[in-house]
């Protein structure tokens, strides 16, 4: 990939880069003195660009709110400026962009990188420079490296996988039980991690797992994998995919008449509005693990309002990942107020001391019993949930205490066309 960048510079790519800059930096509003520079590492171009662009939108909304309300008060009303670094979804570019934001843009803290495969090496750069890295990305081992400057407020893959599999087991009690399963998992860091965790929980429940396949991310064709699963007639198919792959798998399952009792997904692609548009009725009945869904606003009014503002401005609800970015941003704002300085070490200590249990705090967009960090930088109170796609909408199904009571479970997977 580095070749490509050089090539662009050498040739007519100047214009191409200019286009990239407009995309990546549209939000940056420079104010001269007294500004807090927050680096945002996300895939703004490439196959996962859709995710990055929603994350950017949501953060623009959040940062404008902070600035319009007078900035960071304990820092004399300092305004927050977002500076975006585009990873293209590639680990090596993520690393260079992180380096650039730290050394050239002198950011005070970083939020990133959505894809764990990119965030894993990029966060190591931040750690080396002793700059705070607020991590979005669920791979467990990101917080298991003894880093001092890294924090994750949301669930890791173990929590997400356990919620999905236990949720499926609980829901299956209302219909045909699940005895056998296959897992399709993309082959970057996230797919490998979450697939292996799901495997552990499936086997723990005594469900026979035929295979876990780590297929190539953004593949041109996945028919062969679907055909292989078809031969085994599994009761449960779990797919952990970004968007393009999620579309291919769902369509090819329908084409090949693969009809499991339950079709479940680890999150990411299956939660995107474009996925619903792309597969239409085939999405009916798919169960997806997620860390956030607009329906949580039914219990917490301010979340519903915040999401409505997002819809009004950008024409779409917040997504799991953009909500996660929002949460991390609010934790940063809260910590800056307490730190009263942008000194990296003091800021780090303030984040580490975060302890929020007020459900109406803006950092509780992903609502937990409590928001604090253990010694690894992980929030041990983080939870996940299972939603089911019904009539093109996500309905909260599990855990039972958050489920929408009026919603009926679709079971088995109907594979409507």
């Amino acid at each position, binding site marked *: 990939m580095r070749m490509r960048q050089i090539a662009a510079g050498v040739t007519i790519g100047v214009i191409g*880069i200019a286009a990239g800059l407009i995309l990546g930096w549209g939000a940056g509003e420079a104010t001269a003195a007294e500004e807090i520079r927050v680096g945002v590492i996300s895939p703004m171009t490439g196959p996962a*660009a859709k995710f990055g662009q929603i994350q950017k939108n949501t953060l623009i909304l959040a940062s404008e709110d902070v600035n319009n309300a007078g900035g960071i008060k304990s820092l004399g009303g300092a305004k927050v400026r977002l500076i975006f670094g585009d990873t293209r979804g590639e680990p090596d570019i993520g690393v260079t962009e992180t380096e650039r934001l730290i050394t050239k843009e002198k950011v005070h803290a970083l939020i990133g990188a959505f894809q764990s495969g990119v965030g894993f090496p990029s966060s190591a750069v931040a750690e080396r420079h002793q700059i705070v890295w607020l991590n979005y990305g669920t791979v467990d081992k990101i917080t298991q490296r003894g880093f001092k400057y890294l924090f994750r407020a949301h669930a890791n893959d173990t929590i997400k996988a356990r919620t999905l599999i236990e949720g499926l087991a609980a829901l299956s009690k209302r219909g045909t039980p699940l005895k056998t399963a296959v897992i399709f998992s993309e082959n970057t860091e996230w797919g490998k991690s979450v697939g292996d965790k799901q495997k552990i929980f499936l086997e723990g429940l005594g469900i026979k797992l035929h295979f876990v396949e780590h297929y190539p991310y953004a593949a041109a064709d996945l028919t062969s994998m679907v*055909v292989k699963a078809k031969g085994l007639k599994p009761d449960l198919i779990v797919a952990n995919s970004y968007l393009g792959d999620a579309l291919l798998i769902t369509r090819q399952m329908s084409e090949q008449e693969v009809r499991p009792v339950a079709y479940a997904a680890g999150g990411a692609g299956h939660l995107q509005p*474009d996925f619903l548009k792309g597969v239409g009725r085939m999405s009916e009945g798919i169960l997806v693990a997620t860390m956030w869904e607009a329906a949580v606003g039914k219990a917490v009014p301010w979340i519903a309002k915040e999401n409505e503002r997002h819809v009004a401005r950008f024409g779409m609800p917040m997504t799991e990942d953009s909500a996660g970015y929002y949460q991390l941003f609010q934790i940063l704002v809260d910590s800056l107020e307490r730190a009263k300085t942008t000194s990296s070490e003091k800021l780090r200590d303030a984040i580490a001391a975060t302890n929020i249990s007020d459900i109406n705090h803006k950092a509780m967009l992903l609502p937990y019993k409590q928001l604090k960090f253990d010694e690894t930088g992980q929030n041990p109170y983080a939870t996940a949930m299972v939603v089911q796609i019904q009539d093109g909408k996500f309905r909260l199904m599990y855990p039972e205490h958050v489920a929408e009571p009026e919603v009926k479970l679709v079971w088995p997977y109907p594979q409507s066309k």
Partner: protein
Amino acid sequence: MLTFLQATVSGLLIGGTYALIALGLNIIFGTTRVINFAQGTLLMAGMFITYWLWVFGGIHPYLSPLFSVPMLFGLGYLVQNSLVAPLFARERAREPMSVLLLTLGLALLLENLALLLFAADYKTVQIDLGMLTFKVTGIIVSVPRLIGLVAAGGTGAALYLFFTRTDLGRAIRATGQDREVARLMGIDDSRIYNVAFGLSAGLMGIAAAILVPFYYVHPAVGTSFLLKAFIIVVLGGMGSMPGAALGGLIVGVIEGIVGVYVQAAAAQIVLFALFVTILFVRPMGLLGVERR
């Protein structure tokens, strides 16, 4: 057995489309010795043209080549004429590094432009045909993919006739074989280069029409197909048209069978191993001719 046959059939069906994209790469390489890294991006451009024709004009994807092929031909012709040719003229060597970099830059430019104009949405065309299938003795055949294979075959045959029976086609081949001699014979080689580039770009309009009914449209969609096309070109023979066709089908079938019996990722490994092996053992490819 059914699984094996299903894997083979599915592989053949997608292989035709792979072959068509590789064919595009091969026409440019066979004529101008340039490896066109922008081939995948041209495919992407074709897919967007097809998509927007469907959204705004209600034009069925299969009719879109009527518009997209001339548009892409024009684009390719222009790129060769006003970007590649001046570089060629400046650098005496036949395979200048800068042209390769130029195509890379062009790929980036087009991809970023598409992102800017159309956003990173995953767009899909919803037509009933897109999900249509039929069964032959238990094997499921996807109708749009079958149409794709037939269309790719038809396009290949038409190109073959063009290259063997028409003056222009023969002139393109002659220029590819020896530019100097072709020029001595009175062939306007720079125009031939323009036509070859345009032709190759135009082909992407047909590949796009085949893909759009069952695939998604996204600014980065060309990348995964381009990688396959490279393998196919090396496998079948650089510059060889029947080689591209054969290579495309072989790659499709290997993907299908290895994907079913081992896994999709292993199919990639097998393909790249084949890529390296062919380069060592038979650098001219299966159907390629050794060049001086």
